[in-house]
């Protein structure tokens, strides 16, 4: 079973790596224009969103911390990258480091304050922090740096990574980013630390009784997931060539929730499938129904919360288990 999963993952990665070439061969169009270029872009966005969703799942699905402020990290990554690239003209490697540092600091601050309370209090506090950042991103006081409500436009992305000129390069970089994050989170969740995360989710009191300092572990989960989300936000800003207040809005947090819940919380593949599902379906619905498609999404989300609490992956697993039980 385990080996099969490994093979499946590797097969999928190779398929995704070959995808641009296959599509170019199938359509007969050159690889850097037309349909192949468009679908490279679509999938690059899916990869970025997948990392964002997985980072949320590390917090919610694995550690059981329901934060409603995840957009804060996503937006912070985008804005940090944008401001440093545009106003300070830092090289990209330094920007990546800076994004990580900013995310660690934010994660420590927000974790240290919000993790003092539990359950619904935590959701309120994290939502309030995210909303504060959203308000600040729109504040006219910082227009010079953030562009206020217009957002930070025209971020100068290094020429070799330009999503418009070097689309294939961007595709591979975001694929590598996604694969790297996947393996990183897998390592974390399968490590002893990850086991403590799961123990906290299942029963925090018991985890503390065994002797773990659960506060530190929760803080670690928050920082780790914050860093990943910030990196995803940075990639998103590079892709869009801008960072805007919308990245910090509650809808961005809801997006993370949606992807995680639809795919299946507490699994690694779930949020990634959810990200692909939502982005591609969103594109399809957008072309079919125009601007009303978020309504359909919301209704689908409510339906899933009510009837499919463990998402696609959860439903699939219980289906398999039921089939096996029937056969036995």
């Amino acid at each position, binding site marked *: 079973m385990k080996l099969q999963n490994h093979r499946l993952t590797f097969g999928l990665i190779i398929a995704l790596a070959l995808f641009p070439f296959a599509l170019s061969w199938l359509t007969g169009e050159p690889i850097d224009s037309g349909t192949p270029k468009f679908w490279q872009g679509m999938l690059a966005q899916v990869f970025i969103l997948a990392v964002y969703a997985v980072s949320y799942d590390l917090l919610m699905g694995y550690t059981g911390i*329901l934060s*409603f402020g995840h957009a804060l990290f996503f937006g912070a990554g985008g804005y940090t990258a944008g401001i440093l690239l545009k106003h300070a003209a830092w090289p990209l490697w330094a920007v990546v480091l800076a994004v990580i540092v900013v995310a660690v600091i934010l994660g420590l601050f927000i974790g240290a*304050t*919000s993790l*003092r*309370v539990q*359950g*619904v*209090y935590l*959701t*309120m*506090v994290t*939502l*309030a*922090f995210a*909303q*504060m950042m959203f*308000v*600040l991103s*729109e*504040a*006219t*006081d910082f227009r010079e740096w953030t562009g206020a409500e217009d957002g930070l436009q025209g971020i100068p992305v290094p020429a070799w990574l330009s999503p418009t000129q070097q689309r294939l390069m961007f595709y591979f970089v975001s694929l590598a980013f996604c694969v790297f994050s996947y393996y990183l989170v897998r390592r974390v969740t399968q490590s002893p630390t990850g086991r403590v995360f799961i123990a906290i989710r299942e029963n925090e009191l018991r985890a503390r009784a065994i002797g773990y300092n659960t506060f530190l572990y929760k803080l670690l989960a928050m920082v780790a997931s914050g860093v990943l989300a910030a990196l995803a936000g940075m990639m998103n800003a590079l892709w869009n060539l801008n960072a805007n207040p919308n990245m910090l809005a*509650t*809808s961005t947090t*809801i997006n993370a*929730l949606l992807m995680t*819940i639809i795919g299946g919380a507490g699994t690694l593949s779930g949020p990634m499938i959810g990200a692909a599902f939502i982005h591609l379906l969103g594109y399809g619905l957008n072309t079919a129904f125009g601007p*009303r498609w*978020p*309504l359909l*999404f*919301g*209704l689908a*989300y*409510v339906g899933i*919360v*009510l009837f499919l*609490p463990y998402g696609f992956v959860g439903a699939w697993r219980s289906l398999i288990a039921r089939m096996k039980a029937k056969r036995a």
Partner: protein
Amino acid sequence: MTQIFRMWMAKQRATVVTLLIVALAVMALFARFEAKVAVSVLLSGLTLGAIYFLVSSGLSLIFGLMDVLNFAHGLLFMAGAYLGYAFYASGFGQALDSNLRFAIAILVGGASGALLGAIMEWALIRPLYKRPIYQVLLTLGLTFVGTEIIKAIWGTIGYFMNIPAFFNANTPNCPSPSLFDFLSDHCSSILILGRPFPSYRLFVILFGVLAFAGMMILLQKTRIGIIIRAGVQDAEMVQALGVNVRRVFTGVFALGTGLAGMGGVIAAPIIGVNLAMGQEFLLQGFIAVVIGGMGSLVGATAGALLLGLARAIGDQLVLGGLQLPWMEQAISLSLSIARASTVLIMALVLLLRPSGLFGKKD
């Protein structure tokens, strides 16, 4: 004697702390500004506090009784405002004079909030009492859906709701020199210590006080109130005593969301009707509830008042330019800074007292 005093202090610590904070803020305000400016800032704070109270009281009661954190509360506030406005501006409503129309609009907002809330509790939240986290996820999703529906019906542009004629006269002898004169001339503002203050805002304060008094009477003096307070303590026990707690749940949910819906209409002539208001007031409601402590009406009220005062003082400081001792020149800031700083107040309260001022330690 000292023993009694100490016991009283221990019991009333939250009240004393709240009053102390308010007194300090008021003193600082009077030290910094002229008396007439300080008074109008205080009244603005009370106005905001009254609106926050209409949101936070429902949030707090619903959470206290059934452990549901209603993320759709802001949505119902907004839905009340939109529906109240729709009635107020509709052709049918135009036949009536604006005061009656406004009174009915408040009722429309309250009724639609209560009805939507009751349906929501009955149809969607009830199946999820066994899965608490999913209630939060659901109400957040409902906010998303509801906002999209409002956007589909009324579009993305905001609307401005006119102040009813009772508070909107503009004659040469306006602003009214006193509250007594206002009753005959209905000016849009009243002179308070020689500085005009919008009369509609005084009405908002009055409405908030009446709503608070009504809630207190309901909770403390009626049979239903006894059941609700007992339910906050232990809902299962009340059920065991033969009360249909589920029905009380639906009723309290409707009461809370109805207050929010009314609040939306009350706030509309001040802030307008727009798609951002739900989110904004939900957040302020949360902050008020976190400051005051969940599950207590007095806590929700204290939180709302403190928050309203903080916002009003913050806005005044920001607009007048902020000058700290080491600065050569006052720096001028936008209102967003004052809006954002309320979150920091909440963070401060949480650090000092995680269960809020009036909350019980769990």
